């Protein structure tokens, strides 16, 4: 059932807090005391609790079912992580307390850095980026700073494969680089020859995702890294898919110079409906001197915090020290899994994707077949040809079967992409139900039962939404006028 907006429940007289109404004179308010009312309706506690519980029931979530979302790594979120992040020793600590009073917090940063460097075989970590795209910015800024330090500031081109996440070209453009696209070969990976052909004295870096967004390991990556370095450029690796290889392959061994790691994907800090994320960046020896502040520096038992740019550091990406709450969750997760568990998780993630591929291959069309996939499997829409069912329709029909849709229309390298990432968290039992559902849907689409798809979803809280209307007549906040107009109807 629909849930009203909080503004339709509360009013100015309702409040869910008990605070004394102290008298305040204006003498120290610089003449700036508020005159207008706030227009912020309140709810008493029982009203607020029920409102947000009911509203939440209109959401899908990992805890309620499987998210086969390629590239998003929707894995199990252990509650131990949440519990640890809430210990007063972590949650109730101010970022600007004296460093002597936060040795435990710095210890978290130190241990997390150690795990990340060991798992990637890199020389340094910049912890502060607030999310994956912020990490990309961090890595590319380090690259830019390195080039400038070496008098190579003229390098203004960044190579980005067609299959890249949108954040890659956006980040490059953000920093004033022009983006040059690299095509994939017929196997869905990048050939070293294509990279060599695109390299020049003007190229600052390549941004490559590995495993790539088609779910494939870039098998020429070592050669590509060498070619990039030979051309005086740096290798930025998009680490969004690190989940497939953590504990199994070290990106540093492949020759990367910088890679962000999405703690909210790989190390299971929760997605939270869209954030917060955390995107630490590991750096090679070559880029380490350019890392942003803050960073920690160990001095015997004591851990120090460097907060101001020293020689080389490209600066500061955010106030304070980054996403401490996420560091605690990620480190808790790492310690729980251990090195052996993380490797097994990567292996299970790959096993699950290949199991889905093996069981759907006959009905779905895999554009890059004939090789094992990593942690996700890519299909295109050619199996739907002639059915009047689109990838979007197919995805919406999954909702009616109790599943979140897979990733659609990404990567852009194939038509009507369907990218499926089960993660290591799904049991064989769940995978089998998912597979049977997908097979049933594919059969039905081919059998011409179009309504099941074009009318879908029928069993969700809402049916398909009018996105065009939302964009053409943007209504981005509630107002009392709307309320009155509605009441007058």
């Amino acid at each position, binding site marked *: 059932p629909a849930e009203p907006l909080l503004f339709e429940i509360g009013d100015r007289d309702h409040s869910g807090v008990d605070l004394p109404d102290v*008298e305040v004179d204006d003498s120290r308010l610089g003449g700036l005391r508020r005159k207008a009312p706030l227009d912020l309706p309140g709810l008493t506690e029982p009203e607020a609790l029920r409102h947000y519980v009911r509203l939440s029931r*209109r959401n899908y979530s990992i*805890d309620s079912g499987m998210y086969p979302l390629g590239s998003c790594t929707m894995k199990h979120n252990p509650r131990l992580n949440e519990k640890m992040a809430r210990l007063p020793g972590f949650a109730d600590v101010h970022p600007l307390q004296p460093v002597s009073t936060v040795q435990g917090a710095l210890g978290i940063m130190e241990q997390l850095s*150690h795990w990340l460097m060991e798992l990637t075989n890199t020389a340094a970590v910049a912890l502060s980026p607030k999310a994956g795209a912020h990490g990309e910015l961090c890595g590319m800024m380090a690259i830019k700073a390195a080039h400038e330090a070496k008098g190579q500031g003229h390098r203004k081109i960044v190579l980005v494969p067609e299959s890249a996440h949108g*954040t890659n070209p956006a980040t490059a453009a953000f920093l004033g680089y022009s983006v040059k696209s690299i095509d994939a070969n017929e196997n869905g990976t990048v050939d070293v020859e294509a990279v060599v052909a695109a390299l020049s004295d003007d190229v600052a870096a390549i941004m490559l995702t590995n495993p790539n967004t088609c779910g494939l390991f870039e098998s020429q990556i070592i050669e590509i890294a060498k070619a990039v370095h030979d051309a005086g450029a740096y290798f930025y690796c998009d680490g969004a898919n690190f989940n497939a290889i953590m504990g199994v392959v070290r990106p540093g061994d492949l020759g990367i110079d910088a890679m962000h790691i999405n703690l909210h994907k790989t190390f299971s800090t929760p997605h939270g409906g869209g954030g917060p994320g955390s995107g630490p960046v590991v750096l090679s020896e070559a880029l380490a001197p350019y890392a942003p502040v803050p960073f920690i520096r160990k001095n015997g038992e004591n851990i120090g915090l460097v907060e101001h740019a020293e020689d080389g550091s490209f600066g500061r990406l955010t106030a304070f020290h980054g996403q401490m709450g*996420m560091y605690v969750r990620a480190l808790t997760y790492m310690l*729980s899994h251990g*090195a052996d568990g993380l490797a097994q998780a990567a292996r299970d993630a790959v096993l699950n994707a290949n199991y889905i591929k093996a069981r759907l291959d006959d009905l779905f069309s895999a554009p890059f077949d004939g090789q094992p996939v990593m942690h996700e499997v890519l299909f295109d829409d050619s199996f739907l040809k002639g059915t009047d069912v689109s990838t979007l329709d197919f995805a919406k029909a999954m909702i009616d079967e109790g599943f979140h849709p897979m990733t659609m229309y990404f990567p852009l390298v194939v038509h009507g992409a369907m990218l499926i990432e089960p993660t290591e968290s799904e049991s064989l039992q769940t995978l089998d139900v998912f597979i049977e559902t997908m097979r049933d849907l594919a059969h039905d689409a081919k059998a011409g039962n179009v309504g099941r798809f074009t009318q879908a979803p029928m069993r969700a809280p809402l049916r398909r*939404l009018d996105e065009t209307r939302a964009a053409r007549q943007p209504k981005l906040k509630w107002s009392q006028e709307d309320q009155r107009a509605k009441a007058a109807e």
Partner: protein
Amino acid sequence: MRYLPHSAADREHMLATIGAASIDELFSTVPKSVLGTFSPDLPDHQPEFAVEAHMRALAGKNHAAGDGPFFVGAGAYRHHVPATVDHLIQRSEWLTAYTPYQPEISQGTLQMLFEFQTQVANLTGMDVANASMYDGSTATAEAVLMARRITKRNKVFLSGGLHPQYRDTVVTYLSGEEGLECLSPSPEGQGDIVDHIDDQTAAIVIQTPDFYGHLRNVSALAEAAHAKGALLIVVVTEIVSLGLLEAPGALGADIVVAEGQSIGNPLTFGGPYVGLLACRDKFVRQMPGRLCGETVDADGQRGFVLTLSTREQHIRREKATSNICTNSGLCALAFTIHLSLLGEKGLTRLAKLNHARAVALADALEGAGLEVLNNSFFNEMTVRLPSPATPIVEALAQKGILAGLPVSRLEPGKPEVENLLVLAATELTTDADIAAFVDSLKGELA
């Protein structure tokens, strides 16, 4: 391994279905030279109770704000968050939901974001707000970039009262670009940007209450900026202040950015927090980040969707308004729930209580003969000590009193700020805390 659902038998069954002899075979596309050729210096898996013991030991090495008198502010504030807020945000359907790209099964998150946008717009006095940014500092940098896009001009002035780490963040975001000018620190609330504004100016950025606690009336600044076709960006690091003070929108701000941590979110050593970004309607298509809008579904039912996404990187790639992808959803949820509990009545009382506690602090400091630099303040102020602040703060910390922020920590190498201490009080600051602090401070200075 407790998080991995497969038994050995499950794995065997799956491999047989795949037609592979082992999981290793599935990694055949990885060069052999890098596959499993290392043994990391890392422990293996551990029981939950062992992990918990490890983390508790680390937590125990920190002095929690609640362990004693506490006066640190400077962009992050210790407020009470109702238990209901933290309970609700841990609910599975909030905590473990994905970004709401599939609106039919994400109405919870979407409606919440619509509520959030409305609250932020109303609180700041602006037309429209986005669905949150990483934090206040990065939101400030994004606002500067946004103003440059809107005005197609380069020059940006940062006020001397802007939080130094916000300033440093903007500088880094714009590194290599021309036109950015940072005015000198203004601990006495002095100085203004008016004189600098010319017709090349894209924007001026001013914080209120500023880093040193002074309240700044930005009306004149807004007029001056608008007269030259420039934008006024107002930064608020203590969002609770808007319960008592005039909204920046009412004073002429074009873009308001703020740190929302004070409402709903714990200190957590600096993050995750929630950045607020609000602006005039006409600038909406130049905003970075997600926007949630109202629409209807196929049956005509009211619903919400992410909208105007042609601004965003996943659609526009290198032509996007920002590379931002993640928002601060769960922190925004905490903000919205806490603010819904407060409402106008509660927020007003909370703000008054904060100011009253700060007045008590200022009075006690002045009563002890210390020099408070502020004529005006909300819940934060700057004191000039007779000697450098850092060793004094360190000495008080050893006594269990966290005595505020020495300005020189953020502005090193500037003798003129070496004796300055920025102090905050909130509803949690008791008379006993103030007395203990002032007594100890007098002791140190004696």
